[in-house]
């Protein structure tokens, strides 16, 4: 365990100046035991269920965290990449790399690659990771001309690369996320994100009405706070280990996990949020809570987000999504009619 004394964490990210080494050491002393126990259990499940067929037991295992050494393999299995590969052929990645794409999109990707995780030691100009990041985003744009490239995807792919260390695996995981797990967050109108921001705000109103009222009172739109949560799937928001634990569940259970994680933050830091007296301190508060001890302690965070938020069935989220979309469409058509 050198990382607790290092300026960099085990994923190559530089630790913030105010990084709380004491808190982290305390957390790690417990979490390392958890990790070794989980590894042994996972070794067993990999022999008893080598296909990683979806079972209630596997779901529980995923919620308790996938060992780092197995993440690439397990993410690939539980998310349905194989089905995609069967359909599109195993050579798709190479084919897409040879397909020409729109010059503007290529340019935006080129600009964003060097500014992805500039503080991570594995990402630097001329690094193999930069080249790989470019190729993955390129191939994805070629495969999805309707999406092309959306800023934010660079952070997702960057993190996938750090974990899987295999660009082709990243390509498929990115596809499965964007095409199967999430609504149209990254499309040219970003409708899916706009809808989910509103869905989230309605869920908060239902579950934590005082926080919702407080946001309104201080004139703070949810969009200012949570757009990045949704677009980056908490990459560059939550501490890395917590983000990865959220992703474990996301690959298995889909997008409702993002709502759970967001609601958990609101629930746990409710008093801090309510204590803010103006929009500036509230914005500051949202920035700081995601790095505080509870958010860092991924094991407790994930456990609580499944236990303490109350029920959050996919059907409810789908209903709300439909409702919000319908309202948006109605607004748009009245606007059009008014315009003549």
């Amino acid at each position: 365990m050198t990382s607790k004394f290092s300026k960099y964490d085990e994923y190559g990210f530089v630790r913030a100046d105010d990084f709380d080494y004491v808190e982290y050491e305390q957390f790690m002393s417990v979490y390392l035991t958890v990790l070794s126990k989980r590894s042994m259990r996972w070794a067993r499940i990999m022999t008893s269920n080598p296909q990683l067929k979806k079972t209630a037991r596997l779901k529980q295992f995923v919620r308790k965290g996938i060992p780092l050494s197995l993440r690439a393999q397990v993410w690939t299995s539980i998310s349905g990449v194989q089905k995609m590969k069967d359909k599109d052929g195993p050579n798709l990645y190479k084919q897409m790399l040879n397909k020409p794409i729109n010059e503007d999109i290529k340019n935006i990707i080129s600009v964003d690659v060097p500014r992805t995780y500039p503080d991570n030691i594995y990402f630097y100009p001329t690094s193999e990771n930069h080249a790989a990041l470019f190729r993955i985003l390129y191939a994805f744009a070629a495969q999805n001309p309707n999406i092309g490239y959306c800023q934010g995807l660079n952070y997702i792919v960057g993190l996938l690369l750090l974990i899987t260390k295999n660009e082709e695996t990243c390509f498929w995981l990115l596809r499965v996320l964007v095409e199967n797990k999430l609504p149209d967050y990254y499309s040219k109108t970003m409708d899916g994100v706009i809808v989910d921001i509103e869905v989230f705000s309605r869920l908060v109103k239902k579950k934590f009405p005082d926080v919702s009222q407080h946001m309104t009172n201080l004139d703070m739109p949810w969009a200012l706070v949570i757009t990045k949560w949704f677009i980056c799937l908490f990459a560059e928001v939550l501490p890395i280990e917590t983000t990865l634990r959220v992703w474990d569940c996301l690959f298995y259970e889909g997008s409702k996990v993002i709502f759970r994680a967001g609601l958990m933050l609101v629930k746990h830091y409710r008093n801090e949020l309510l204590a803010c007296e103006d929009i500036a301190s509230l914005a500051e508060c949202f920035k700081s809570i995601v790095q505080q001890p509870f958010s860092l302690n991924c094991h407790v965070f994930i456990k609580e987000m499944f236990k303490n938020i109350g029920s959050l069935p996919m059907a409810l989220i789908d209903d709300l999504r439909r409702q919000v979309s319908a309202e948006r469409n109605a607004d748009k058509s009245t606007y059009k009619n008014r315009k003549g």
Partner: protein
Amino acid sequence: MANRAVPQRPNGQTPGKICQFKLVLLGESSVGKSSLVLRFVKGQFHEYQESTIGAAFLTQTIHLNDVAVKFEIWDTAGQERYHSLAPMYYRGAQAAIVVYDITNQDTFERAKNWVKELQRQATPGIVIALAGNKLDLNTMRSVQTDESQTYAYENGLMFMETSAKTSANVTEIFKAIAEKLPKNENTNTAGQGRRLVDSAEGSNKSLSSCCK
């Protein structure tokens, strides 16, 4: 002027006023919006500034005579598709800086579109400044100063060429905006009106009482 009627304190000092304004930055991706804010707020510059996802929020206060002008700065994402999120961010803004990159003509055209949109849809009377950024790359310039100057004049905008890298005109543009913003009226324009707080009172409980 703003503080003519401010009463003197017993110790003879003038109690400053704090005026808060919401300012939004708009413009094409990678023209330097976040860098301008970082320079203005923290005095720093990063060669590889991380791209902004959604929006970022920062505050900075500048002092004009005896008025403290506190900017609530909303820095936005620039990629075209993030456009549909923009109205959520510029709602209620009293000032905007529309940024383009002087080495890239397309970004200037995009800036003009932002200006049009703001004039049509944002807070009436919003103070708009046009910033031609990356002035340090003057040798690679493709947008001429005259052209922008004329455009700004015809559209009633403030205009400066800036460099977040060298810090040229960065504080100046914020200061010019601060000077132009009205600090002594009671009228609310749209959305959240300007909010003026007597700093001696400390908090925002006197939001409704503007500078007298």
